[in-house]
């Protein structure tokens, strides 16, 4: 298994296992009695060996019924028995060297429209090829009797194919007509149906020209375009639904009589007293009345350091209580709480963005009236000039056939499908073809800090001064806490602890205490862990803890939030490409200032979620087209408000659902790559549209003058479609060089833990 499983480029730090388990359960769906299914995205799967390793590792977990890797989409589908807690899929995969993310972007349900389109495509392809074979012999000069026979056979094949495959167009054309509008599907349906009708008439009259082949191959080419286009359309965004997952579903409320009842969130009223255990999310906006704890607010405010909650602190709905139980009093009902407010902001923003019309739709809007008018003018013209109704109708139908927008229909989706494929090869998922068009136009990039420029989880740094034994002691104690620093310490463990501990207890807001024999070990804030004040180190930054034995300091540990890989390169490249950039963060001034100064980018700190969206909106009113890159719940309104948006796969579920693009790998170079590719795709789309227009400029006069034979129509249509497809295939993605483990280590600047993980 040497070729795979190193996973060096993809590693990230474990999310809180408890919260992850809860998220796994909520993101799964029931497929049978007591069987649930979960889809995970595993970007580093790339060979047969990986398939086997992953299926074996997952299959051995307790409760897993079946696991299957999809190598094409880099996903794993797992069926598991739902009677207990979800098996630790993500942890097991990480143990095997694969980074996995929960993913349900388009796995919501089997796409029925797509399979209908593919079936229609297969039927029309079958019919087109058979009719074309018969037509070739007619064009080569078949005897009149043979020709008539072949026309009849063609009609027999064409009719059911038309009825089956044409429905896609007929239905939407009918809908458009019913609402008194004209859309691209109206001339298509008219052209196909009239061509078939006229050919049938010619066949009955033993005429020499029948257009069955044109009618059906038109349908075939158009269906290719339609199928590709459908693949690139945005799926319904379950973004707002996803928010509900972060909300607690209920809480233990203390009734006036002193009894405790579990109420659902919607029943909680301001003034109620709630018991909040460690590991639970805050159900509604509230104030602390009793207890001390640490709160993980990173999803809500973007602040990386856990906040101390003590009596009097104000809590926002959705934050996670990490260490100690709290008694809180609700200050708002669920409908007025922070999460509900976010939902409202996002709904408003998404409405704003839906005004964007895609290039293909704009082209189609211009195209349909022009085609109708040309065909109509041809009909009238021939009637006036010759007075021959048959001749006039034939020419008008020929115009409809020849102008049928095959090339136009393929021009945009073909490029977008190729672009999506190239992006996927670089670990970027595209949600919507229209996003590619918007991404090509942006001129300003706004970054979030926590989780976007950095990885959002603290890492242990400067372990050089600490002996492995001391580190092992600290890690052994830390493994009993859910505090992010504790988890970072536990992850850095290299040796087994030299002693065993009893009575490990957590003192919320202060740290952990453990006994080993007669000694008392404390791991936590210096002021609490050290007994005599003289030993107190000079007040350093917040990001450190102390390990003390009987009040004497053994070691001090420092943490920082590690930068995402290639941040510097990405920023340099964006600068040289002339993009304006900003960092907008909800975190404290100091860490944001340091980071922004390092990168040479202007910054704004301590921004509330609504403030981020407003900032993006004000840039938009100033005429800027903003790309928002962010991951937190607090970035979500800004992601929705921005002209285009990107999120890392490690983002909050909701952020992934709102963002136009999701990058799966750790490296931030995905941002300039995606922009470059979007611009290249934009150029190809314009070329393709120009090709389609040129084709029409040449072909339409010939059709209007009545010189289009079935042979000419077939050649012109296929030729233009093939040219457009070939042009789209020219789009090249840039290959990212595979990152070596050595490069990974030096890029992060952290020796110990990184080497460990890379070696796994």
């Amino acid at each position: 298994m040497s070729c795979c499983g190193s996973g060096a480029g993809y590693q990230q730090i474990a999310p809180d296992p408890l919260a992850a388990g809860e998220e796994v359960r909520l993101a799964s769906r029931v497929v049978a009695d007591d069987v649930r299914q979960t889809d995970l995205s595993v970007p580093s799967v790339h060979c047969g060996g990986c398939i086997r390793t992953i299926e074996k590792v997952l299959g051995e977990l307790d409760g897993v019924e079946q696991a299957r890797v999809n190598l094409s989409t880099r996903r794993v589908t797992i069926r598991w028995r739902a009677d207990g807690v979800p098996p630790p899929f993500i942890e097991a995969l990480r143990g095997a060297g694969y980074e996995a993310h929960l993913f349900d972007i388009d796995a919501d349900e089997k796409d029925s429209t797509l399979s209908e389109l593919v079936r229609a495509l297969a039927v029309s392809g079958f019919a087109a090829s058979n009719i074309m074979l018969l037509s070739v012999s007619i064009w080569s000069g078949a005897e009149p009797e043979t020709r008539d026979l072949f026309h009849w056979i063609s009609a027999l094949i064409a009719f059911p194919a038309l009825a089956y495959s044409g429905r896609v167009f007929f239905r939407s054309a009918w809908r458009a007509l019913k609402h008194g509008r004209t859309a691209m599907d109206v001339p298509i349906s008219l052209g196909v149906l009239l061509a078939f009708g006229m050919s049938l008439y010619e066949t009955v009259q033993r005429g020499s020209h029948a257009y069955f082949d044109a009618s059906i191959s038109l349908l075939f080419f158009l269906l290719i375009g339609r199928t590709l286009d459908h693949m690139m359309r945005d799926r319904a965004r379950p973004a707002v639904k996803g928010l509900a997952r972060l909300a607690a579903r209920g809480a233990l409320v203390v009734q006036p009589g002193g009894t405790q009842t579990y109420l659902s969130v919607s029943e909680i009223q301001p003034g109620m007293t709630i018991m909040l255990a460690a590991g639970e999310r805050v159900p509604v906006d509230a104030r602390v009345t009793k207890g001390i704890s640490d709160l993980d607010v990173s999803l809500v405010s973007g602040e990386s350091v856990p906040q101390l909650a003590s009596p009097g602190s104000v809590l926002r709905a959705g934050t996670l209580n990490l260490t100690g139980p709290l008694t809180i009093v609700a200050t708002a009902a669920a409908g007025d709480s922070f999460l509900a407010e976010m939902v409202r902001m996002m709904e408003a923003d998404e409405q704003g963005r839906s005004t964007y019309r895609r290039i293909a739709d704009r082209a189609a809007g211009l195209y349909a009236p022009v085609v109708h008018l040309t065909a109509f003018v041809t009909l009238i013209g021939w009637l006036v000039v010759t007075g021959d109704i048959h001749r006039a109708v034939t020419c008008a139908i020929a115009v409809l056939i020849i102008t049928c927008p095959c090339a136009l229909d393929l021009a945009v989706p073909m490029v977008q499908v190729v672009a999506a494929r190239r992006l996927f090869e670089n670990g970027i998922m595209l949600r919507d073809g229209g996003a590619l068009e918007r991404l090509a136009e942006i001129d300003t990039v706004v970054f979030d800090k926590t989780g976007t420029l950095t990885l959002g989880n603290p890492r242990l740094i400067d372990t050089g001064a600490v002996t492995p034994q001391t580190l092992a002691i600290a890690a052994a104690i830390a493994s009993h806490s859910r505090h992010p620093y504790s988890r970072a310490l536990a992850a850095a463990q290299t040796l087994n602890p030299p002693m065993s501990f009893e009575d490990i207890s957590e003192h919320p807001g202060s740290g952990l205490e453990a006994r080993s024999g007669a000694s008392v070990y404390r791991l936590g804030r210096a002021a609490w862990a050290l007994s005599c004040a003289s030993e107190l180190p000079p007040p350093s930054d917040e990001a450190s803890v102390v390990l003390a034995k009987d009040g004497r300091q053994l070691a001090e540990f420092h943490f920082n939030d590690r930068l995402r890989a290639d941040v510097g390169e990405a920023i340099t490249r964006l600068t040289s490409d002339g993009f304006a950039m900003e960092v907008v963060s909800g975190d404290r001034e100091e860490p944001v200032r340091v980071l922004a100064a390092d990168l040479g980018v202007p910054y704004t700190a301590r921004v509330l979620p609504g403030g981020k969206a407003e900032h993006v909106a004000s840039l938009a009113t100033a005429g800027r087209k903003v790309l928002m890159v962010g991951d937190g719940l607090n970035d979500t309104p800004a992601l929705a408000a921005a002209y285009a948006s990107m999120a890392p796969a490690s983002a909050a579920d909701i952020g992934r659902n709102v963002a136009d693009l999701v990058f799966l790998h750790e490296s931030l170079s995905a941002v300039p790559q995606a922009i470059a590719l979007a611009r290249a795709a934009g150029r190809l789309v314009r070329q393709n549209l120009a090709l389609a227009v040129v084709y029409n400029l040449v072909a339409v006069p010939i059709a209007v003058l009545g010189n289009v034979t079935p042979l000419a129509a077939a050649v012109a249509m296929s030729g233009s479609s093939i040219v457009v497809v070939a042009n789209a295939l020219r789009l090249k993605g840039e290959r990212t060089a595979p990152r070596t483990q050595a490069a990974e280590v030096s890029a992060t600047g952290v020796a110990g833990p990184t080497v460990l993980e890379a070696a796994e």
Partner: protein
Amino acid sequence: MMDYFYLIPIAIGIGLTALAAFMWSLKSGQYDDLDGAAERVLFEESDAPIPPTAWPKRQ
């Protein structure tokens, strides 16, 4: 001329068979993972795909 009476039905029949085969392979999920199928041919274990189900609403 008489040749047409059996040659053309045979040709169309072959075409229809291919169409039916494609529809079947599509329905049984054989196009869901083309890259994976190419690798799985090397393994001896049973590797039946996860049977498609009606996808009920998420709970």
